[in-house]
C-alpha cells in the first residue's frame, strides 16, 4: 500500500481516477502503488483542476503530499 496526503484549505472529498469515495483532504489516504489522477469534489474553485501522479516508495510516516489551492471565484 502507498500513502498520500491531499492538502487543501478545507475539508473536502477527494476524487481518485474520477471515482468518488470516502477519501477526504488533509488526511493520509491509502492507495495501491500506481498512476492516479486526483481532484476534489465541487465547488470547483481550486487550482490545479487535477493532479496526475505516480505513487511509489511511500510509507505512512513519509506519505506523498500534493496541494490544491483555493482560487477566488
Amino acid at each position: 500500500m502507498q500513502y498520500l496526503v491531499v492538502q487543501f484549505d478545507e475539508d473536502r472529498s477527494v476524487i481518485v481516477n474520477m471515482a468518488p469515495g470516502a477519501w477526504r483532504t488533509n488526511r493520509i489516504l491509502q492507495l495501491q502503488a500506481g498512476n492516479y489522477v486526483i481532484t476534489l469534489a465541487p465547488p470547483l474553485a481550486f487550482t490545479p483542476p487535477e493532479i496526475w501522479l505516480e505513487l511509489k516508495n511511500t510509507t505512512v510516516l513519509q506519505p506523498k503530499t500534493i496541494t490544491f489551492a483555493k482560487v477566488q471565484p
Partner: protein
Amino acid sequence: MRWLLHRLSRLRRVASLLSLAVAVCCAPATVRLRPQQFPTEGGDGPGYRFENLAGGPESNEFNQENKFFVCLSFSGGGTRAAALAYGVMLALRQARINWPRPNETLLDEVDCISSVSGGSFTAAYYGLFHDDLFTRFEDRFLYSNIQGRLLLKTLYPWNWLRLASPYYSRIDLAAELYDDQVFDHKRFDDLIQHGRRPYIILNATNIGTGNRFPFTQAQFDLIGSDLGPYSVARGVAASSAFPFLLTPLTLENHQKLEGFPTLLDYQLGLEDYYNNRSRYYWSRSQLDYVDAPHPYVHLMDGGLSDNIGLRSVINAYEQSNGFISRNLPAIERLAVIAVNARTLSKDTISDCRRTPHIAPTVAMATATISMDNYSFDTVDFASRLMSELRQAELLSQQCPGRPEFHAPVPYVMEISFEAIADPRVREKFFGVGTSFHLPAEQVRALISMGCELLKKDPTFRCMLEDVEREAAGRHETTSACEEDNQDFHPRAVEQITCPDPGSWPGR
C-alpha cells in the same frame, strides 16, 4: 395413385419435421435459446453495482452502513460447499450485536458475499430471498437431488433435439433447471430492486483468458451489456460449470460503448508494469474485452481461477476503484469470513509406476489441482494485506502531530474442515464428495459443522468481544485479537445454537 399421394403426404410431413429440427439446431437457435443481453447505453451509473445498494456514498446511512464492514466468501465444492456456507449463515443469523446499531444480527451487517461454484447457490439464494434462505433453501436445494433431475432432463426426447444444436448445451439445460427449481426465474434486476446489501458477486472463469469473470455490472460494462435482465440462475450455472461434467456457458460481447469513467483506472493501470504488476496485468486483462474484443465469452466454473471466491473481495479492498477501498476511510472494523469446503482427495496417481493416461487422469488433475492449491495462499494474502494497514495505523499513532490516518481493525477468518479437532471426524468430512446430491445425513452434518466451526473460531470470538466492548461504550485503540489472553466468551457467541448434526459421521 391414392397410394402415391399418401406416400407424398407422409414425405412432406417428414420433410417439414426435418426442416423444423434444422431450424431449431442451426443459427437462429442462438437467438432463441439464449437469453438476450441488452447493450448498455454507457456511463457508470445504474446497474448492479455496490454503490447503488443501500448505504452508498450519496446516502444518509453511509457512515452507519460502513462502520462494521463484513464480507463473506463461499468456496466451490457442490452441495458440500453450499451446506457448509449455509451453516455459517445460520450462526451469523443468531449472533446478536448492539454495535454499530442496536439489536441487530451479524448477518444484518454482511455487506458482500463473493462466491464460486457450489457456494454460489447459497450466496445467490440469500441475495434474492433473504430470510427465506432459512425456510426454503434446504428443501429446494440442499436436500434435493439436483444431479438426478439434471440427468432426467437430458433424457427427455425434446431436449435431445435442443442438445443437438451447437448453440445449446448441457449448461443451458442446467441453468433452466436451477431457474425452475431454485431461483424462480429471478433476474439481476431483482437484486437491484431490493436495493439492500449484501452485494452478491458470483464468480466464473473466462476460459479464453483464464481470468476471473464476476457477474457484476462493472464487468458487463466491458462487454457492452446490461446485467439487469440477465438470469441469476445462468450466473450461478456459469459459476458452477465444473469441467467435463458441464459445458461452458456463452455470453455475447456487445463491446463497450465510449465514455465509461471506470476505464480511466484501467488505462492508468497499463502504465504500472514496473511499479505494480498485479494492477498492470488486471488492467490489461480487463481492457482486452474492449481493445481486442472477441464476439463471445465462454465461461466455466469460478473455481478454475479462484476456488475460494476471495479474490473479488481482495480486489475490492486493494484496487483504488474497488468498493471496499473507496469506503475504507469510513470503515472501523473489517471482517472477512472465507468459507472453504476444500477436501483432501487421496493421491492415487503416485501409487502407479505407469505414466498416467491423458484422459481422464491427467485431464482431470490439470483441471482441478489448481482449484485448491491457491486457497491457503489467498486467505493468507488477504490477512497480510489487511493487517498491513492496521500496523501502519499503530505506527502513525506513535508519531503525533502528523496528518490523521485511519485503518480498520481487520478480522480475517477461514472456516474449513482443517479446524476439526477430532482426526477421525476430520477425515470423514474430507471424504465428502463433490456432487449436487449428497445423502441427507451428510448435508445435516455439514450444516451443523459450518455453524460449529464459526462458533469456535478464535478470530470470530475476539471480533465479537471487540463489538461487545464497543457497544458497552469501551472504545479501545487495541483489539481483543491483539491481546495475549484469547479466552473470550462473548455473549453473542454463547447465544448461537447450532443444529443437531445427526448421526453422521458418528462421534
